[in-house]
């Protein structure tokens, strides 16, 4: 990931750009998520007649997203990042809470199919997200067919060719099939499909974690360029903190389906307040062996607790070296601290 970091350090224009976006965030948010929870019903462990119990994959997540903003969502595997993305897009039913898109609650909304043209998603596995029986051109054209039926064939072909060019693919390849492309090219096709309707929000569900490092940088830069050009908001889900640092304006840290910390990027990376965020930060390798050797790591002990049987009070207390008796009794709420919100009782003492 080092080359992305270098890129971000050397790219002064990119930094000022993100600062500019930070200043213009005065209008109403385009997406408002409140207390969103997703539950799955799973068979319980005690035999086939044990009935079913609820697994809460996403628990009371709230956040705002403004036009043109990039929100990073980080957390370890199984913390509910992808589930959150799918619940926002209504691909999974929310058990509680609301997802307000441009003033309309999407949960159980009848005109949802129309709204979908503004909300798109890019998937983790580039090849699996493309239909193997369709040509790349047909795949990219599908949103147009669905939402812009009035566009004729010739015009549609022109738009698809333009989009191919825009994401760095040669338009002569429109008649090829997905398996004939490399992983990075497949992800470009996925981006072209998501971008062709000029959506206002794209959810990127780990868009680069299946790609190798040099390709990752290309794809991340492509997303940034597209965002600069078309001004869509991004929700960027990743477990890679360096990539998130490079592309995001704000970062939300999830643990076991709950938000433990949200902050402006620079604040979060400079002074993480939640012990979990600190542990995550200290796990990022530093590409300088001297510093790397000398720094003190916060090593988390134990595993992620089972979401079927989450601990009482603070969900992180089982792995937290600062845990006290209050942590077992009281669920910490997100506390606003100026550009940073933390869900920890003792964030001041740490």
């Amino acid at each position, binding site marked *: 990931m080092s080359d992305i970091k270098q890129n971000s350090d050397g790219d002064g224009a990119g930094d000022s750009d993100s600062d500019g976006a930070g200043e213009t965030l005065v209008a109403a948010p385009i997406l408002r998520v409140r207390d969103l929870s997703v539950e799955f019903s799973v068979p319980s462990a005690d035999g086939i007649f044990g009935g079913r119990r609820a697994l809460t994959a996403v628990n009371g997540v709230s956040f705002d997203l403004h036009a043109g903003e990039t929100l990073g969502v980080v957390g370890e595997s199984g913390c509910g990042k992808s589930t959150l993305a*799918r619940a926002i*897009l209504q*691909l999974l039913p929310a058990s509680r809470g609301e997802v307000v898109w441009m003033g309309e609650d999407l949960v159980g909304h009848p005109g*949802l*199919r*129309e*709204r*979908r*043209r503004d*909300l*798109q*998603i890019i*998937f*983790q*596995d580039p090849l*699996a*997200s*493309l*239909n*193997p*029986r*369709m*040509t*790349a051109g047909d795949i990219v054209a*599908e*949103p147009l067919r*669905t*939402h812009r039926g009035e566009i004729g064939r010739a015009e549609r*072909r*022109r738009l698809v*060719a*333009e989009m191919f*060019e*825009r994401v*760095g693919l*040669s*338009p*002569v*390849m*429109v*008649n*090829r*099939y997905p*398996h*004939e492309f490399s992983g990075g090219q497949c992800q470009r096709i*996925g981006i072209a*499909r998501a971008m062709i309707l000029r959506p206002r929000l794209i959810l990127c569900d780990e868009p680069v974690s299946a790609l190798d490092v040099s390709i990752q940088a*290309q794809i991340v*830069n*492509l997303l940034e*360029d597209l965002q600069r*050009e078309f001004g869509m908001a991004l929700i960027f889900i990743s477990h890679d903190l360096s990539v998130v640092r490079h592309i995001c304006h704000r970062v939300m840290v999830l643990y076991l389906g709950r938000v433990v910390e949200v902050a402006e990027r620079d604040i979060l990376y400079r002074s993480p307040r939640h012990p979990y965020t600190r542990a995550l930060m200290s796990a990022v390798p530093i590409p300088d062996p001297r510093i790397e050797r000398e720094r003190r790591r916060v090593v988390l002990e134990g595993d992620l607790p089972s979401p079927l049987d989450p601990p009482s009070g603070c969900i992180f207390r089982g792995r937290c070296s600062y845990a006290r008796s209050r942590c077992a009794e009281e669920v910490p709420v997100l506390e606003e601290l100026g550009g940073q919100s933390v869900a920890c009782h003792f964030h001041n003492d740490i």
Partner: protein
Amino acid sequence: MNTKPSAATLEAALNAPRVHGRGVWGDAARRLFRNKAAVASMVVLAVIVLLAVFAPWLSVYAIDDIDWDNIQAPPDFAARHWFGTDGNGRDLFVRTLYGGRASLAVGVLATAVSLVIGVAYGSVAGYIGGRVDTVMMRFVDVMYSLPFMFFVIVLVAVFGRNFILIFVAIGAVEWLTMARIVRGQTLSIKRREFVEAAHAIGVPSHRIILRHTLPNVLGPVIVYATLTVPQVILIESFLSFLGLGIQEPLSSWGVLISEGAKVIEVAPWMLIFPGLFLAVTLFCFNFIGDGMRDALDPKDR
């Protein structure tokens, strides 16, 4: 790659010859044609189909012409009874070819019927899932449990003997397996990310089924269909053997075999020739089906 494409380069790219990809189907076809058994079977099957189609012009005898001089006669090239005659003095060559018409028509049409019903039913049940799926598939289970012969006999008793009825009866039984196969495949396909992507785009359900899940289940469906054709031909032969199928003077391989079986000691040619045609046809379909399965097998890719 980060620069905005200029109008000129875009124009050039649009006018450039497009690269045509090798589709999944194209690849499969190429592999199928490399399979010698499958290709040979296709050739033999084509010959049999052509013989059946052009039957009236291939012999001087009509299907119900009776040659009073040659009753139950062995093959006789001078009299142009190449396969001999049956107990009524009718030319067996013509009857075998006509029988092929009936058997192949039943085989292909009943398979088509079962294909249409089974694919539609299975993909809807699999795609919708949940309670709808449970109800639809339990109905299939109930249909499965009905004894097939009993079902056919009831149909014949109610509607009388009828060529169409054979399609209905066989199709009504064969679609059940097809529906199960399609449903199972659809269940696994609909969890794939490209279907989720189509959902996210807002593609309506019927289009998702038609454009996304269905094309991806067609591989196993085609394989099963080619294996259904011989099965249906066998069922038709069985029904005809029991006297529930094709009516005189028309014939099918099943009817001819049943007649031949009665006189196997005195006129073996009456069993051998139609039996040979049936067996060769069944082999061909099975080889083609095997070839297709190998050609479409994703593990081979």
